[in-house]
C-alpha cells in the first residue's frame, strides 16, 4: 500500500468538482459510467488543437510529424501502463465495446464455427455479450456462461466444470460494473490456457482503479476505455498478443489500415495500423496519454487503497441502515468501489432523482447488465461508484441522502399512530 494521497490537491485538479448541482456542491459518484477529467487532460486536448493539429502517418509536413509522434507516444504510454512490452500490440479503438467487437469480428469470424464454444459469464456488460451473440447467430458458435455465487462473485469452480475442449475463448470481466466483484483473473486465464482456449479480459472497471499487467495476467486479449480513467471519450484500447493480431484479418477497411491498394485488392498494413482504418480520434489519443501520466503520477496502488477505504466505510454505513439491500461481496478484498443497492419499496429511478436533488450523481437502472438484473431478480439498482477524487465526507453525504430518501418515500408505509 502506498502512502497517503494529497486528496485536496487532487480535487483541485478537477475543475468540474467546483460546480453546484441544484444549488449544492456536486458529489460525483457515477465513476463506473464515466469519470471526470483533470486540468492536465483538458489542457492536453486544447494544446493539441492549438499547436499540433494535423492528420497522422502520411503527411510530410512538420505538424503531421508532430501529431504522429504524439499519438505513438500515447500508444507507448498505454503499453507501459498495462505491462505490454510492444507498443504495436496496442490498437486504439473508439471504446472498449469496439475493441470487443473487433475481436468477435476479426478473430471470431475467421477462426470459430458451429463446433466451437465461447465461455462468458453471467456478470458481463452487454458489450461483452451482444458481440458474441451476433457471432453465434452468424457462425453457430455455442455460448456458455459461468454462473456467479450467491454473494455475487464469479464461481471459479463452476468455470472449471463448464469449460470443455470445445471452448476456444473465455471472455470475462475483471471487475463487475454492477457488483464491484473482482475476478481472480490469473485463475481464469490459466484455466483457459490449460484447456487450449484463448482469454479476453474486459478490464474497463479494473484498469482505472488498481495495478495490472497483461504479462502477469497472461491474457491473450484485453479491452478497456479511456473515458473511465480520466481520459476523453472516443478512445478505447485493445491489447492482443502479437501473433494472434497478426493472424487475424482486418476489422474495417479504408485508409491507414493498408500497405498497398490496387483497384481490386489490397494488402494490409502492419500492426497496429492494420486495425485502425480511417483518421482516428487523434487529439483524444494524445490526451489519453496525459490521463495515463496523471494516474501513474498519483500511483495505482494508492488509488486502490483510497477507494478501498471509501468502500469499506460505505459498506459499514449501508449495512447499518434498515430497509437497504446491498448487492455483491461484502469483503473489500474481493470487490472494488462500486456499490449497487436498493431501498426496499422505492424504485431505483426515484432514488436517483432524490439523490440528484442533493447534488449527488449516482446511476440507476440496469447498468447495461439486463441478464445480471434478472439473476438478482430486480428491475434495476441504484449504484454509487468511487474514484480517486472522492472523499469520506462524500460517503457520509451519500448515506445521509439514503436516509433522507428512505424516510421521504417510506414514512407513509409505517403505521400512522
Amino acid at each position: 500500500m502506498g502512502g497517503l494521497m494529497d486528496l485536496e490537491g487532487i480535487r483541485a485538479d478537477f475543475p468540474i468538482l467546483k460546480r453546484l448541482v441544484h444549488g449544492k456542491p456536486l458529489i460525483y459518484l457515477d465513476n463506473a459510467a464515466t469519470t471526470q477529467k483533470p486540468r492536465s487532460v483538458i489542457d492536453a486536448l486544447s494544446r493539441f488543437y492549438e499547436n499540433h493539429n494535423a492528420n497522422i502517418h502520411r503527411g510530410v509536413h512538420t505538424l503531421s510529424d508532430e501529431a504522429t509522434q504524439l499519438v505513438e507516444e500515447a500508444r507507448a504510454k498505454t503499453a507501459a501502463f498495462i505491462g505490454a512490452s510492444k507498443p504495436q500490440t496496442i490498437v486504439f479503438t473508439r471504446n472498449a465495446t469496439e475493441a470487443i467487437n473487433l475481436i468477435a469480428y476479426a478473430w471470431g469470424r475467421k477462426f470459430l464455427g458451429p463446433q466451437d464454444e465461447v465461455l462468458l459469464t453471467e456478470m458481463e456488460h452487454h458489450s461483452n455479450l451482444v458481440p458474441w451473440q451476433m457471432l453465434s447467430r452468424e457462425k453457430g458458435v455455442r455460448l456458455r456462461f459461468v454462473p456467479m455465487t450467491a454473494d455475487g462473485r464469479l464461481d471459479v469452480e463452476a468455470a472449471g466444470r463448464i469449460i470443455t475442449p470445445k471452448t476456444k475463448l473465455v471472455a470475462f470481466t475483471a471487475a463487475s460494473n454492477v457488483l464491484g466483484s473482482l475476478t481472480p483473473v490469473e485463475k481464469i486465464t490459466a484455466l483457459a490456457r490449460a484447456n487450449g482456449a484463448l482469454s479476453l479480459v474486459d478490464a474497463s472497471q479494473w484498469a482505472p482503479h488498481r495495478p495490472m499487467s497483461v504479462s502477469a495476467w497472461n491474457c491473450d486479449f484485453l479491452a478497456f476505455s479511456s473515458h473511465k480513467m480520466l481520459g476523453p471519450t472516443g478512445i478505447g484500447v485493445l491489447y492482443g498478443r502479437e501473433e494472434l493480431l497478426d493472424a487475424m484479418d482486418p476489422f474495417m477497411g479504408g485508409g491507414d489500415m493498408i500497405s498497398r491498394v490496387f483497384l481490386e485488392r489490397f494488402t494490409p498494413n502492419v500492426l497496429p495500423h492494420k486495425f485502425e482504418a480511417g483518421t482516428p480520434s487523434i487529439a483524444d489519443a494524445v490526451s489519453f496519454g496525459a490521463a495515463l501520466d496523471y494516474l501513474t503520477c498519483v500511483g495505482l496502488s494508492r488509488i486502490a487503497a483510497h477507494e478501498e477505504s471509501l468502500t469499506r466505510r460505505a459498506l459499514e454505513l449501508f449495512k447499518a441502515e434498515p430497509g437497504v439491500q446491498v448487492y455483491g461481496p461484502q469483503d473489500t478484498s474481493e470487490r472494488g468501489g462500486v456499490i449497487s443497492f436498493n431501498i426496499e419499496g422505492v424504485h431505483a429511478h426515484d432514488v436517483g432523482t432524490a439523490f440528484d436533488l442533493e447534488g449527488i450523481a449516482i446511476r440507476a437502472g440496469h447498468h447495461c447488465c439486463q441478464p445480471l438484473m434478472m439473476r438478482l431478480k430486480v428491475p434495476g439498482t441504484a449504484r454509487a461508484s468511487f474514484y480517486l477524487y472522492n472523499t469520506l465526507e462524500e460517503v457520509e453525504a451519500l448515506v445521509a441522502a439514503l436516509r433522507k430518501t428512505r424516510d421521504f418515500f417510506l414514512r407513509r408505509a409505517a403505521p400512522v399512530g
Partner: protein
Amino acid sequence: MMSRPGDSELQDLYRELLLDYSSSASHKGLIKGAELHSHGINPVCGDEIELTLNTKAGAIDRLRYEGHGCVISQASCAMMAESLEGLSVEKARSLASAFKEMMLSKASLESLPAELEIVRALEGVRRFPMRVKCATLAWNTLLQMLAGPKGHAAEFQEVEG
C-alpha cells in the same frame, strides 16, 4: 397530513398527491376478457403498464391496470385511469394527446382541461426531462390501445433518446 423530511424541490416533484396515487389500489387489476388490452414498457428503466378497457355506448366504462415501476409512472397511470373513466373514447384520446403535449412543452399544466385536474400534480416532473417518459408511459400505452381494433393486444415501447 404528516410533513415529510426533505427540501422543497423533492416535495415539489413528489407531491403528496403523487405518492398517494402511486400506491392507490382503486383502479388496479385487469378486466377479464376486456374489449381493449395493451402493454407498455420503457426498456430504459423496465417500467411496465398493462391496461384493460371496456366501453359502453362510445364511452370508457372501466379502465383497469397493473404495473410496476417508479412513483411517477405508477401515479400517472392511476391518475389517468381515474380521470378518463366515464369520458367518451374521443374525449379521452384528445385529453391524452393534450397531456403529452403539455409534458413536453414549457406551458403550465394549470391550463390542462378541468377533466385532468388531478394530473396537474405531475407539474414538477417537467423540470426533470429524463423523467418525462415515466409520466407519459401510461398515456402512450392508452393511445396505442385506442388506435387498434377491438380484441387486439397493443404493444407500446418507449424509445431511448
